[in-house]
């Protein structure tokens, strides 16, 4: 992969609870420049919550989160924004601005850039819609789009500022297999061509194993394993094995 061993996102002993209920328990991870890092886990295991912590949208109870070496713990909102400009996030439920057109959504991150001409903005918008397979939808409203289309607009919106770190929350959930493959290829191409570091959250094991350099599994709030897909396929951990094989019987309590 030719990646440098430069830590981009570092999470140390991250503990987070909501209303006294622990959601994440001493989770640690470290990703490198250009790496695609996968996070898998059962529904409700705290995958989205982990991304929200990394983005600084919620404050952890304890532990440390570093983005390109800078700790985001204790930063105020304005200081956090200086870190967030390096990052992009694709939300699980898209979170498009529903009062704006697709064009306004996609170009939101560039709306204060006076150095880009309107025609250049238009071109960038078309280009980004094109790569997520939505060319020509500029003037539509989010309410007129299907769930999968909304998701892809969300990806285009996050990519427009060319962030060096991308957080994808279930990027291909709700997409057809062809479109899912297109998005996967996009994630890989960004990391290969631009050194974009990606953290991809999903419960689609096969997809993630074809995509990620390393995969972490969250179970009951803990990071129980973190290894390459090949190693995880032959893991002795019963929980990992059950999850990877998608078996109904096993140690995972349903």
């Amino acid at each position, binding site marked *: 992969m030719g990646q440098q061993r430069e830590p981009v996102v570092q999470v140390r002993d991250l503990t987070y609870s909501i209303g006294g209920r622990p959601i994440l328990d001493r989770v640690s991870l470290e990703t490198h420049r250009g790496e695609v890092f996968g996070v898998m886990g059962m529904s409700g295991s705290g995958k989205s919550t982990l991304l929200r912590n990394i983005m600084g949208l919620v404050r952890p109870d304890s532990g440390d989160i570093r983005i390109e070496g800078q700790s985001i713990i204790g930063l105020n909102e304005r200081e956090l924004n*200086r870190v*967030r*400009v390096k990052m992009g996030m694709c*939300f699980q439920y898209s*979170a498009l601005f529903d009062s704006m057109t697709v064009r306004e959504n996609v170009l*939101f991150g560039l709306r204060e850039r006076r150095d880009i001409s309107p025609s250049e903005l238009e071109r960038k918008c078309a280009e980004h819609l094109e790569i997520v397979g939505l060319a020509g939808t500029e003037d539509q409203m989010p309410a007129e789009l299907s769930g999968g289309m909304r998701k892809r607009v969300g990806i285009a919106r996050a990519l427009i*500022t060319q962030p060096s770190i991308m957080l994808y929350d279930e990027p291909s959930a709700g997409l057809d297999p062809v479109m899912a493959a297109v998005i996967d290829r996009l994630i890989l191409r960004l990391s290969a061509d631009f050194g974009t570091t990606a953290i991809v959250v999903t419960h689609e094991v096969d997809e993630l194993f074809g995509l990620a350099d390393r995969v972490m599994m969250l179970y009951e709030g803990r990071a129980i394993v973190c290894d390459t897909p090949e190693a995880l396929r032959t893991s002795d951990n019963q929980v990992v094995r059950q999850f990877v094989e998608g078996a109904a019987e096993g140690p995972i309590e349903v």
Partner: protein
Amino acid sequence: MSLRGESPHFSLPGGASLLSATGRQVIAFFSYFGETTRLQLDILVGLVKGRLEYKTTIAEMAFVGVASLPVVAVTMIFSGMVIGYHMAIVTGQLGVSNYAGRVVAETMCRELGPVLVSIVVAARVGSAMAAELGTMKVTEQIDALRAMATSPVDYLALPRWVACGLMVPTLTFVGDIIGVTGGYLMAVLMPELNAGAYWTHIPGTFEAYTLVAGIGKSAVFGIIIAIVGCHQGLTCKMASEEVGRATTRSVVYCIMLIYGANLFLTALIFRG
């Protein structure tokens, strides 16, 4: 979660639980006061640092100002007419019916204009702000803003604050004029009133200070509407029924705060 929070009180004697309930109310009041003050300060910082976005501000001004005009006009013309009716009778009994117009103008500009216009805007605009921002909160659009390094206060609250701060006084000025005109319509309709004399004492003795002071009060009310509406939206809990609650609360809090602030400001501004 709320169940667990409340359950200990069932075992306490009534007095203690009443006391702790009161205590909670007092804490809730002060934390509300603290949060809204904090929002106001954040908005002012954004304003001073030039973070106001003009496009959204103009759209909000159109929504707050232009779109509120019909309901403001209806409210004020009918208020002016009923006040005109009463004042015609009262000034007639006192033998000063030439002053009916003056009394209507004073009533409108001092109290009814600022308060009625603000209540109408609170019901129409404050609730819409709470609902819109609350929906954005629930659907993670506020988080999406933050993830894109955009402050929801600068992007959402600041334009609404400016729009309310400018358009509520403007609406009040227009409302004052419509109200006084409503009184005049009544003077024309009522035979015992000398319609020709209605306007005579308005420009001569009526002080510009009265007009400006009333409009000044309405600027404060406008800011209250924006702060309360935006605060309810931005702090909405993550469920759709909470959006409804936030909307209702925004109207109730706006109305209570407007009445309270009006009493205070009236005592401060109008002396002698």
